[in-house]
């Protein structure tokens, strides 16, 4: 092309968030979030809503703070020494960083699925039953069986493993292990599911299965997903948030972000240009 853009001054270029970071009646709302790892600031003044029953994709280059932000949503960063989180986080209007909030209970309401499938070295059944047992969700064995079966069904894994529920979860294929982890998350009836690159270690078929599952899960849960795959973000989410150097650059309807982003940095990232 004839015109060549001058390299934008990144810090000046990100002046507030472009697009629509807020929604009506959000499931989770966050305001003015700053995160520090020791002296190093990882997130700068991020304000973002996560709508009810929506899939929101958090995208951005490595080190942009998207995973850090995601981990704030169920206080996973509490476990990291030297990490301090400030700002407002609400789940259905309720402040999740107040002292009275038990992080363990919070994480049952806001579950998480990680990049690498991490089933417990236990049977498939016990992997799923672990959470409900811990939280006392089942009164007896029959109820527990029902939770395990329905969770495996919702995760689209039941038909493949129903004859070997007592076999170790670590013996499953990568895609099956990830679905087992999703079943384990669902088993404690969360309201929100956070997914940190859930399909990056999977082949295209297993990835397609997980994406199909995300679409189904949206009926019952709110989902925030961090992904490095632009196509995946475009396929599974309704809204997309683009992070850059710890700042929230742009949030918008996914269809719009991938066809007509408003910010040059978003454009550069999703089209694979030098930022």
């Amino acid at each position: 092309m004839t015109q060549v853009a001058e390299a934008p001054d990144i810090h000046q270029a990100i002046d507030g968030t472009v697009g629509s970071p807020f929604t009506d009646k959000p499931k989770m709302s966050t305001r003015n979030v700053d995160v520090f790892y020791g002296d190093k600031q990882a997130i700068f003044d991020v304000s973002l809503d996560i709508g009810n029953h929506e899939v929101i994709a958090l995208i951005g280059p490595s080190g942009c703070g998207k995973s850090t932000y995601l981990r704030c949503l169920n206080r996973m960063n509490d476990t990291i020494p030297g990490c301090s989180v400030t700002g407002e986080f609400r789940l259905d209007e309720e402040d999740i960083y107040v002292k009275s909030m038990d992080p363990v209970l919070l994480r049952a309401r806001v579950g998480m699925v990680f990049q690498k499938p991490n089933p417990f070295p236990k049977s498939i059944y016990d992997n799923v039953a672990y959470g409900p047992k811990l939280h006392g969700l089942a009164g007896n064995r029959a109820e527990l069986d029902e939770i395990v079966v329905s969770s495996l069904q919702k995760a689209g894994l039941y038909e493949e493993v129903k004859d070997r529920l007592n076999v170790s979860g670590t013996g499953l294929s990568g895609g099956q292990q990830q679905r087992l982890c999703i079943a384990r998350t669902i088993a404690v009836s969360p309201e929100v599911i956070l997914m940190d690159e859930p399909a990056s270690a999977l082949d295209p078929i297993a990835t397609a299965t997980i994406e199909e599952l995300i679409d189904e899960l949206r009926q019952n849960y709110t989902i925030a997903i961090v992904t490095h795959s632009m196509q995946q973000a475009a396929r599974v989410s309704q809204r997309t948030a683009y992070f850059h150097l710890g700042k929230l650059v742009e949030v918008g309807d996914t269809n719009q972000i991938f066809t007509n982003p408003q910010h040059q940095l978003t454009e550069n990232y999703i089209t694979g240009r030098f930022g």
Partner: protein
Amino acid sequence: MDTDLNLTQHISHRFNEELEEVRNMALNMGGLVEKHVSDGLKALLKADSKLGEKVASSDYKVNAMEVDIDEQCTLILARRQPAASDLRLVVSIIKTITDLERIGDEAEQLGIAAIKLADQNTKPSQFVELRHLGEHVKGMLHDALDAFARMDVEAALETIQTSTILNEEYDAISRQLILQMMEDPRQIKNALRVHWCARSLERIGDHSENICEYVVYLVKGRDVRHVSIDEMKAELED
């Protein structure tokens, strides 16, 4: 949105080259089509059956280019899964070359008509009214292709605006030809041929307008098809 449409800044050099290449192919196709329209019109107005023959027999080149460019675009979609401005560029090219191919078909029709009218020993003066419309359409096609090459939204909008005049000219020619036919029924056959030429030219104007609309989509990310020029401007000011 006013993000820059830089094709040369991808991390993948090969992707830069692929986009640049397919864009150049589309521009070349535009150049060839423009030449065919110009020659077709010239053949018609000068009753030059040789030139008419040449235009009518070269449409295959335009068709072949369309197929080639479509294939390149398909490969880019498959390999690169382009997004944002890259996606809009590929989509605009796919749409533009469809219109260019149809313009090529209309130019072919002009060539064929030139041969037939010349065979009838029709005096070029009988369809001198086509000259003005023809020049206008040629200019419009040229401006549309220019706006596409320079990705110039302003120029595209200006070009779209001229299409109203073109429609008026076409209507005027139609009325004039009807009069001619009523006055001298022996001229009906030729008058109809001339009318078909006017129709072809008017269609070329419409296709040029489409190309301008793709330029707006490419640069601004807004789909301005099937809306009035005022709505278009209002949409772009948002």
